[in-house]
């Protein structure tokens, strides 16, 4: 069997086949195109081609006032739009000197963590599909539905929320929201155990994902890989814990990192997947604390009005989105429109490491590796 570290010997010399995987392919998770060079079933090289979803959102930002760009951010990482909203709003608040009230900060963390769970559930489900198990997807969507219902109660939207605004959030919680959230927090740990039973520790699944796409910590850092992918390689880095923002300093949670307990090396596809499963638990923990700690009070900073940061101010805001370190670099020239908004999308760096880790793997592993990186093309292409 193709165990890690063993080079595959090719006894029969056969023709190399160049295959165009995508942009329309069921498991490229969007309009990613990968040019594969294969020898039979073995993948010799893979070059990702991106840009099929490019909208030049950064140019759009330069032509809008600060507040108007918020809806564009949740069309970047459309799977966890709240995280993008939060990152952008924090970046603008940082250079404009706005402080959101405490209740708003808690609400922000509640919605981003809910959205992180929803995003990881999608990653879990689609990873199941990538490896050939369809049922986990629907199990994951069952709970994702609850989260989307919760978020819909808050802001009326289920995918592109624009709930977080510069200086606070859009609206306070509707009646019944906290109860439904508590109910979700109560039932969710049991569901995570169910997922683990169904997929994570399934023998075939582990055989399929253990030891493939091994990403060493050095390579991961060199390529700027962040988020669960980096933590899967054993690097304990999480912006929420390392450089905490918002109310994260007041919250207690673990940062899970990759293990070798499953019998595979650090940084393989299974580890990357399993980090997400562990983070589901951590996010639930955070949600629980937030619900308990959330104070009463206003949800919007006073006198935000027209956001007009001073001229030539700049700020780079790092936040931990579901896929990794999301950076917003905002530069102001003293007008109501930013002169530059640079989005540092985590998936952009995460997918760039693909050629490095698929060489010599089987064709089926390419799919499993792309799935384990959990990319969102909306944010890669922006």
């Amino acid at each position, binding site marked *: 069997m*193709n165990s890690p570290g063993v080079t595959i010997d090719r006894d029969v010399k056969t023709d190399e086949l160049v295959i165009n995987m995508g942009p329309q392919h069921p498991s490229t998770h969007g309009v990613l195109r990968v040019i594969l060079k294969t020898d039979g079933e073995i993948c010799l090289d893979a070059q990702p081609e991106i840009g099929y979803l490019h909208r030049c959102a950064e140019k759009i930002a330069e032509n809008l006032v600060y507040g108007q760009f918020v809806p564009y951010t949740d069309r970047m990482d459309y799977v966890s739009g709240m995280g993008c909203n939060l990152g952008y709003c924090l970046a603008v608040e940082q250079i404009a000197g706005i402080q959101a009230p405490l209740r708003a900060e808690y609400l922000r963390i509640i919605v981003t963590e809910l959205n992180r769970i929803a995003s990881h559930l999608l990653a879990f489900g689609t990873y199941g599909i990538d490896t*050939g198990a*369809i049922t986990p997807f629907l199990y994951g969507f069952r709970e994702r539905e609850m989260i989307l219902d919760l978020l819909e109660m808050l802001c009326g939207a289920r995918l592109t929320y624009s709930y977080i605004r510069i200086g606070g959030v859009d609206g306070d919680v509707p009646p019944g929201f906290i109860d439904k959230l508590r109910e979700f927090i109560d039932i969710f740990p049991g569901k995570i155990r169910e997922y683990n039973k169904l*997929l994570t520790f399934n023998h075939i699944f582990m*055989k399929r994902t253990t030891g493939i796409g091994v990403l060493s910590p050095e390579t991961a850092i060199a390529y700027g890989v962040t988020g669960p992918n980096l933590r899967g390689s054993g690097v304990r880095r999480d912006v929420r814990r390392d450089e905490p923002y918002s109310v994260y300093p007041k919250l207690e949670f673990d940062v899970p990192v990759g293990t070798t307990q499953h019998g595979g090396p650090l940084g393989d596809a299974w580890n990357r997947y399993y980090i997400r499963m562990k983070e589901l638990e951590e996010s639930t923990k955070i949600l629980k604390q937030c619900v308990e700690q959330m104070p009463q009070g206003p949800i919007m900073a006073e006198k935000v009005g027209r956001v007009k940061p001073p001229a030539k101010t700049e700020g780079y805001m790092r936040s931990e989105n579901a896929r990794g370190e999301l950076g917003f670099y905002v530069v102001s020239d003293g007008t109501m429109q930013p002169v530059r908004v640079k989005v540092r999308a985590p998936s952009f760096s995460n997918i760039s490491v693909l050629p490095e880790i698929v060489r010599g793997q*089987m064709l089926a592993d390419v799919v499993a590796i792309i799935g384990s990186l959990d990319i969102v093309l909306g944010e890669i292409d922006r």
Partner: protein
Amino acid sequence: MNELANFLPTVLSRSGLTVPSALIPVLAMFLCASIMAAFMGLSAAVLVWAERKLAGHFQCRLGPVYVGGKFGWLQSIADGIKLLLKEDIIPDQADRPLFRLAPYPVVIGVLLAFIAVPFSEKLMVTDFNIGVFFILAVLTVEVFGVILAGWASNNKWALLGAMRAAVQMVSYEIPMGLAILPVVVMAQSLSLKTIVAAQSGGALHWFVFQPPFFMAVSFLIFFIAGLASLKRAPFDLPEAESELTAGFHTEYSGMRFSFFFMAEYAGMLLVSAVASALYLGGWHGILPGQESVWWFLAKTGFLIFVMIWIRWTLPRLRIDQIVYVGWKVLTPFVLACVVGQSLWATLR
């Protein structure tokens, strides 16, 4: 079929038709073939519905609910009509004659195999004295159709799917064939009718429950290899939709696509039917003396349920793992079973 041939003249004379006596066997053949084809189509339709319904319930949803009342049981008919009415697209660069030809071996292979399936003591097309062997042989024709489809599509994904199908078939034909041998040793015959007849007298006489349980192991191996030869999950690599888009039938649409689909479901029925005839006592009931076609169908249905259950639970294997399992796990085990059973049969 012979009964049918004997029966036909009386029917024909009653209806007032005169047919030359030389044509009567031919007519009987045609009748038989059309009955089998209709049965296969119908069972495929039922199985498609059952699979969708079961998959729905496995996945916390309802499955088809609208077409044909509460349970959506007309769903597969609607699907069939949709597939019939769809445009039959042939890619520009495809090898057109082969592309058109490819679905037929697939269907014919499965259909031919049904000839030897004993539904009950009376209800079978013909009792081949090499029944089991015949089924194995014609099933390989199906794989050739699959390979042809993949090659003729002139699509790289389809080609990869076809290659996987070839590899899988070569690896699993051997354990599947060998798994039958312990049964043949016990029943002293290759005829499915004789094999089933040898298991009469209640559940304890079914081959799967016979000590020293070599046949139980070979039943498992037969079932696994059968899943692999049907290209069902977790062995659905030739059509792995998340890897090869749709594998060998990527380029097929409409009626030609539905042939592949039909063959898969008919194949499920076939493998389950053969397994229940070989190991689970065929038409014999749990208690001695119970004999009915319904027993046979119930056992077959249960095995089909298990197949569906497996498909909607397990992830897919990888090609090297499939080959590994086929050659290094199943083949040695089944060889041990054959040797063990033969020794048991001679020493007893």
